[in-house]
């Protein structure tokens, strides 16, 4: 339908929500695919637009009904001018200001206009360089020492035991063990019953203690790190834990920040500092932060720093938001998120910064985002807990019946008890006749109750817990050893960090995924370029090992190379060296534009070879990085950037370009430009941007053919799924430059509406451009991602992508990963007020209803496939939605959507979104992510996949072995080895996954059916021998032997009936278990000091014994077999069918190996399930 135009969103620099923009249009722009002849929305565009901030009433739904109702395959906007998303904008944004020219950036200007007064009540006052006064306020601010450990020496024992006894099984074991300690009740040996529990508790405690010791140690190291703090006018080293709010701290390059601080000044004259926030949000690129010009100028004079008052909001978790203002010389300056650097960030590419601590210790945003790791319980375990409670009720009922009967019996025989041969109430052996083991009525009944608890405790399958855990260990073993989950490139295996959630992997309904590093490789790759109307698309991949072919420059005896190489097109490479031909000139300009028109910061990185250094480009936009690397590979290497100029090494010659001005990307213009003073004394403006807006400002009259050629190239790039950018240039005459310069100066110093003014200036200079060319960049998806997402969707799993990325990037990845398809109707929500959020949600829900009505009335039963919804929502809107009453609406909407994209979300919001689903449904959720920013979400979800989580319970598990009896072995073996279907079949039909989501193999109904079945089995096992041996000479031991053997055989045959794949091991386990029971019985009955001596051998000689055994097994199994066969034939589920098909070859039985290949590398090898 749209010929890949969905990939066409040219994305450039981060979409700055230009602060202070006068108009904040928010559109819900939806497209309905047209598949029906009679659809009223055949033009398929429903547009919701409105200015929610200023003019909420203008919000409306317009449905453009086209006059023709029968356009098939029409696209909802012509050509590649496809724009299903519109941008909302708001005041707060992070890093919207990639490079700042001059002293005042647009961002601060933006904040001024949309400045919000911080309520004094809610404010935290920080007196700069006056920690004493700062901390003398009503509320004590937290110190900077942190604590992640759980226990102290004193609290360890009680707390650890308390936590351990959260497991119901342990409490149960404890109760049984205590009961066994009472002499009146001792059914089993006393020590024997307490030992296993004590053992398990001890091993777990040791493991926990060790883990906590390690946490203590890392806390101590962290707290004792040194930072340079201004004390009495001089910088002194101070331990991190001693830092207080209000202190002025100096941090040098590559150091980690000890607390959240507002920047006062930096080593850069313009007040720029670069930080890496990997520890916070997982993004590895550099972010720019600014010191206010007012403080930047003061700080070098150290003594002058005091007297500032910062009023900021209370500590919160939002790492992308900060609101404060600073009083300086009676003036108030507002501070935003770009003025604060957070604990855990690393200072990069900046010699030093000086800042004032505003949040310390546990109040820092990093620590607030560090939610504790909750332990995970699998759904199976939860259900098991529930059912065990039911069984316990049974048990109690049974024991009550027993004790009541006992009471009645005692009462009936109260006169006879003292004499009765088999009871004997009195002990006559002593001279004085005493009661023998008789404690009176009430106690007798009570003791019988407790005794029957001990006797019937087997009803509660407590060993099931242990069996299940052992099964998980086995499953984890196979997962870890799976060759298909091995990642060659990182040489790492799958790791299973939490054993208690394995089985949930089969019931996932929602997958929450991080984008960067999970869906994508976080690698933009320059693929091809169209320069001067010629398509250079024949790039050869230069392998990184092949260093000689890559471009490098010689500087001071050092060889500099770009860290990443791109595919080089030989023709383009040759042209780039011929500066003097006409074509060469064009290519020269193009490559200079790539190298100069960006906000990239070059860093040099050491390599193992001291003579070789790598140039690494850091910037907020991966697209720009890719372009800069591309330019470098063609010999236009950006080697240096300072505030006023850049140095580009062009074919070995270092040339200095003065950066005179920069117009940032904004969502209206969708382009950015730099005004550069070139070495040849000309002033040029380089512009790059989205094709949609670039072609409007290009002077087509210059070379119409070239423009057309470029347009067709662009079309082909975007249909290949590349992200395209158009690059243009104009040389400014002196008068033009001066005119621009004066208006630029005045705009950037304006106090009100600065952003709007700057945009106007930009629009004035960005016109009549000469088209240089276009580039195609691939945002490399991880291998197999589209296939995987496709499979997930067929499997009925809803995929949500949560990313800190910009909306555009997210959407374009959504398309390339097939998360979003052209068939989907997109609902975009980005707002900055609660009311507008509510309105948007309501509208979206109405839209959904409308759509579903439409499809229902027109498409009959096939509507479900066509009106798929995709929800795109951003972090700021989520701020107003999560944890408010709007959550309900969001959930309602989101649960109707096939795909959900959340952009610009903070780590804790990710967890909030997961909680949104988890708290409202029983559906299983899985979160996958790679960075520290995903931790909270990973911990929240039922199943977490990622790198995190230290809690391994292997040690406990190992100790639990001691409690398992051999009869569980077959169950465990089957649990580990059995598979219902082969991987080939499962991959062919992802829908089969639905069985797990619907809980077909284990649910409440099945539980009760199984209970009934087992009741019948126990009836058969008990009453058949009872009736057969009535009136006979059979002894206790002999009949006991028959019963135990019957039960073991029944249990194993029962299990065998459920086995799907019989491996040799399965045979050994099941039949071996029966055999082992026989052998055990024989051994026990061969011990002369036990009462049952030789009983088995005597009874085994009789034929009645074997006849009974056979009878029990068959009679016990018949109902189960009948039901099983009946269900399989008459109400087969998908698994049944697929299994039959697998066996009888009705499915195209393709080779599983070849089928696996495309996805074989899919699971990220670094993935680890976490608790």
């Amino acid at each position, binding site marked *: 339908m749209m010929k890949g135009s969905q990939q066409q969103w040219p994305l450039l620099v981060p979409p700055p929500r230009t602060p202070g923009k006068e108009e904040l249009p928010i559109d819900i722009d939806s497209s309905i695919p047209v598949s029906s002849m009679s659809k009223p929305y055949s033009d398929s565009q429903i547009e919701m637009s409105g200015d929610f901030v200023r003019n909420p009433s203008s919000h409306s739904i317009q449905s453009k009904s086209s006059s023709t109702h029968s356009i098939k395959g029409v696209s909802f906007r012509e050509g590649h001018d496809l724009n299903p998303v519109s941008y909302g904008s708001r005041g707060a944004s992070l890093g919207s200001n990639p490079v700042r020219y001059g002293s005042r950036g647009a961002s601060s200007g933006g904040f001024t206009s949309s400045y919000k007064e911080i309520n004094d009540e809610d404010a935290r006052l920080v007196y700069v360089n006056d920690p004493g006064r700062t901390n003398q306020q009503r509320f004590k601010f937290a110190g900077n020492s942190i604590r992640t450990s759980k226990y102290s020496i004193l609290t360890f024992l009680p707390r650890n035991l308390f936590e351990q006894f959260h497991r119901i099984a342990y409490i149960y074991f404890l109760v049984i063990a205590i009961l066994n300690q009472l002499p009146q009740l001792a059914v089993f040996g006393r020590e024997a019953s307490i030992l296993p529990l004590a053992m398990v508790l001890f091993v777990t405690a040791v493991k926990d203690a060790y883990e906590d010791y390690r946490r203590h140690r890392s806390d101590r190291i962290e707290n004792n790190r040194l930072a340079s703090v201004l004390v009495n006018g001089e910088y002194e080293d101070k331990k991190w834990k001693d830092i207080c709010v209000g202190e002025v701290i100096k941090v040098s390059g590559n150091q980690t920040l000890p607390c959240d601080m507002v920047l006062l000044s930096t080593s850069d004259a313009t007040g720029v500092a670069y930080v890496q926030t*990997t520890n916070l949000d*997982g993004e*590895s690129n550099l972010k720019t932060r600014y010191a206010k010009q007012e403080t930047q100028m003061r700080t070098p004079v150290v003594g002058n720093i005091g007297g500032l008052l910062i009023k900021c909001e209370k500590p919160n978790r939002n790492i992308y938001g900060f609101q404060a203002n600073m009083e300086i010389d009676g003036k108030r300056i507002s501070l935003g998120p770009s003025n604060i650097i957070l604990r855990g960030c690393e200072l990069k590419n900046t010699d030093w910064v000086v800042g004032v601590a505003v949040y310390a210790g546990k109040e820092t945003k990093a620590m607030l985002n560090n939610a504790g790791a909750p332990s995970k319980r699998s759904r199976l375990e939860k259900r098991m807990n529930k059912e065990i409670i039911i069984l316990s009720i049974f048990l109690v009922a049974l024991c009550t019946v027993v004790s009541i009967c006992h009471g009645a019996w005692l009462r009936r025989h109260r006169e006879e008890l003292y*004499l009765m*041969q*088999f*009871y*004997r109430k009195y002990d006559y*052996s002593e001279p004085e006749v005493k009661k*023998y083991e008789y404690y009176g009525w009430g106690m007798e009944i009570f003791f019988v109750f407790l005794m029957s608890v001990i006797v019937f405790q087997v009803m509660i399958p407590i060993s099931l817990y242990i069996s299940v855990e052992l099964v998980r260990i086995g499953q984890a*073993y196979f997962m870890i*050893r*799976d*060759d298909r989950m*091995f990642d060659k490139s990182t040489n790492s295996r799958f790791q299973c960090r939490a054993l208690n959630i394995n089985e949930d992997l089969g019931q996932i309904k929602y997958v929450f995924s991080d984008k960067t*590093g999970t869906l994508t490789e*976080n690698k933009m790759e320059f693929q091809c370029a169209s320069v001067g109307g010629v398509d250079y698309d024949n790039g050869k991949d230069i*392998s*990184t090992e092949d260093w000689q072919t890559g471009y490098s420059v010689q500087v001071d005896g050092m060889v500099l190379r770009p860290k990443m190489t791109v595919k080089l097109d030989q023709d383009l490479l040759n042209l780039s060296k011929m500066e003097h031909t006409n074509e060469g000139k064009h290519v020269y300009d193009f490559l200079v534009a790539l190298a100069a028109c960006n906000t990239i910061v070059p860093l040099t*990185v050491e*390599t193992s070879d001291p003579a070789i250094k790598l140039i690494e480009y850091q910037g907020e936009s991966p697209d720009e990085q890719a372009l800069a690397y591309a330019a470098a590979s063609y010999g236009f290497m950006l080697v240096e950037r300072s505030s006023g100029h850049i140095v580009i090494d062009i074919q070995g010659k270092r040339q200095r370009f003065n950066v005179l001005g920069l117009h940032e990307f904004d969502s209206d213009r969708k382009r950015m430009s730099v005004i550069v003073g070139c070495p040849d004394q000309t002033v040029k403006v380089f512009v790059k941007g989205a094709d949609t807006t670039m072609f409007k400002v290009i002077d087509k009259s210059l070379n119409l053919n070239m423009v057309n050629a470029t347009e067709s190239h662009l079309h082909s790039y975007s249909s290949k799924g590349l992200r395209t950018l158009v690059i243009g240039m104009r040389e400014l005459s002196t008068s033009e430059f001066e005119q621009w310069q004066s208006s630029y100066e005045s705009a950037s110093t304006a106090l009100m509406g600065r952003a709007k003014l700057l945009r106007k200036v930009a629009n004035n200079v960005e016109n009549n451009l000469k088209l240089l060319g276009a580039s195609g960049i691939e945002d490399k998806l991880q291998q197999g991602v589209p296939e995987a997402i496709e499979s997930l969707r067929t499997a009925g799993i809803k995929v949500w992508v949560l990313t800190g990325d910009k909306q555009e990037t997210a959407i374009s990845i959504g398309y390339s990963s097939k998360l979003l398809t052209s068939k989907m109707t997109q609902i975009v929500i980005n707002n900055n007020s609660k009311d507008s959020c509510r309105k948007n949600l309501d509208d979206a829900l109405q839209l959904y209803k409308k759509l579903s009505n439409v499809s229902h009335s027109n498409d*009959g*039963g*096939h509507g479900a496939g066509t009106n798929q919804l995709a929800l795109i929502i951003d972090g700021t809107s989520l701020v107003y939605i999560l944890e408010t009453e709007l959550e309900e609406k969001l959930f309602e909407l989101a649960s109707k959507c096939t795909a959900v994209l959340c952009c610009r979300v903070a780590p804790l919001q990710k967890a909030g979104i997961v909680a949104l689903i988890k708290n409202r449904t029983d559906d299983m959720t899985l979160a996958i992510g790679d*960075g520290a920013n995903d931790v909270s979400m990973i911990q929240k979800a039922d199943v977490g996949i990622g*790198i995190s989580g230290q809690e391994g319970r292997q040690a406990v598990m190992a100790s639990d072995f001691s409690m398992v009896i051999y009869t569980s072995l077959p169950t465990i073996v089957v649990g580990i*080895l059995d*598979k219902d279907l082969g991987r080939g079949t499962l991959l062919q*039909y992802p*829908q089969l996954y639905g069985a797990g989501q619907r809980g077909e193999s284990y649910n409440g109904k099945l539980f009760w059916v199984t209970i009934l079945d087992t009741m019948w089995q126990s009836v058969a096992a008990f009453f058949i021998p*009872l*009736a057969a041996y*009535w*009136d*006979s*000479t059979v*002894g*206790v031991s002999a*009949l006991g032997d028959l019963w135990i053997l019957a039960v073991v055989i029944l249990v194993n045959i029962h299990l065998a009936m459920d086995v799907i*794949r*019989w491996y*040799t091991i399965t045979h050994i386990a099941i039949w071996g278990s029966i055999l082992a029971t026989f052998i055990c019985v024989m051994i026990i009955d061969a011990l002369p*000091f036990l*009462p049952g*001596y*030789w009983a088995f051998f*005597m009874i085994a000689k009789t*034929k009645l014994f074997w*006849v009974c055994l056979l*009878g029990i097994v*068959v*009679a016990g199994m*018949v109902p189960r077999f009948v039901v099983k066969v*009946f269900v*399989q*034939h008459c109400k087969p589920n998908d698994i049944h069918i697929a299994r*039959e098909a*697998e*066996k009888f070859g*009705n499915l195209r039985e393709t080779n599983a190996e070849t089928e696996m290949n495309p996805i074989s590398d899919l699971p990220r090898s670094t993935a680890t399930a976490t608790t």
Partner: protein
Amino acid sequence: MNSGTPSSSAAGAGSADSTAPRRNSKRPKYSRFTQQELPACKPILTPKWVIGTFLLVSVIFIPIGVVSLFASRDVVEIVDRYETDCIPEALRNDKVGFIQSNQNKTCQRTLRVPKNMKQPIYVYYQLDNFYQNHRRYVKSRSDQQLRNNGSLQDTSPCKPEDNTASGPIVPCGLIAWSLFNDTYGFTRNNQQLNVNKRDISWKSDREHKFGKNVFPRNFQNGTLKGGATLKPDVPLSEQEDLIVWMRTAALPTFRKLYGKIEVDLQRDDVINVTLENNYNTYSFSGKKKLVLSTTSWLGGKNDFVGIAYLTVGGLCFFLALVFLLIYLIKPRQLGDPSYLSWNRNPSGH
């Protein structure tokens, strides 16, 4: 990031593995076991198998049932309940008083043989409502003491029948104390019928469980007299009535072997039994029966096994027919993908 580059950039910090030096590959070693590719048998319950299984069960069970039933019918059993009849009518309102008194408890019973009985004819006593499996009772014995002369003092589990003033009781405990003490004598046509009381217990018990050098001591010397007394000069291994009694019965209605009559009995023979009615079952309303029975390959007279087998066999035959009908009336091609839920008509529901 770029794994080929020797220097790892900060950008790759997300993955801890990338910084680790590459030593040897962590690739899991391939084996069919670890890759879960072991050969497996995947049985499917096809109609053939289902009907075959049911038929097989019925084919095995019905004959066994018939044979068992015949065997049970072949067993000749004479049961005589005597606990009430052996109390003089005048004393029947105080049975416990009678049994505890020192009156003469000899009692004459007459049995008529209904069918020819081939030797050996087993003589049992049968007790009803006697819970030899009671928890307190079962534990009240010392297997050590029974086996081993040196373990006389090992009476701890035997309370309250563990010690007397003159030392430990051998055999101690409630089981031994309550040893059955009715005796039977049989005459046919005024000729004594010999009851062989040897080898009525398990050989294994005589040889390994009851010591050849363990003799009864202080037995039934306590204040409360239980059941039978034992000859003090006969070792426990030869006290076969005790050995039989000590094999506690599993069920509250049980028989214990008293002896064997090793001559054939003819139909309509009249057997006179002289019995000593000593054992007190009256305090717990227990019944006492004297049983003469032959045996079959399946044991005593019990129709249950035969009936149960015939029932199960018949049921399975019936089920085989039912499933045959189901398969004929509503056939389903195995593994037909059109039965998959997503292939069925979605508008169907």
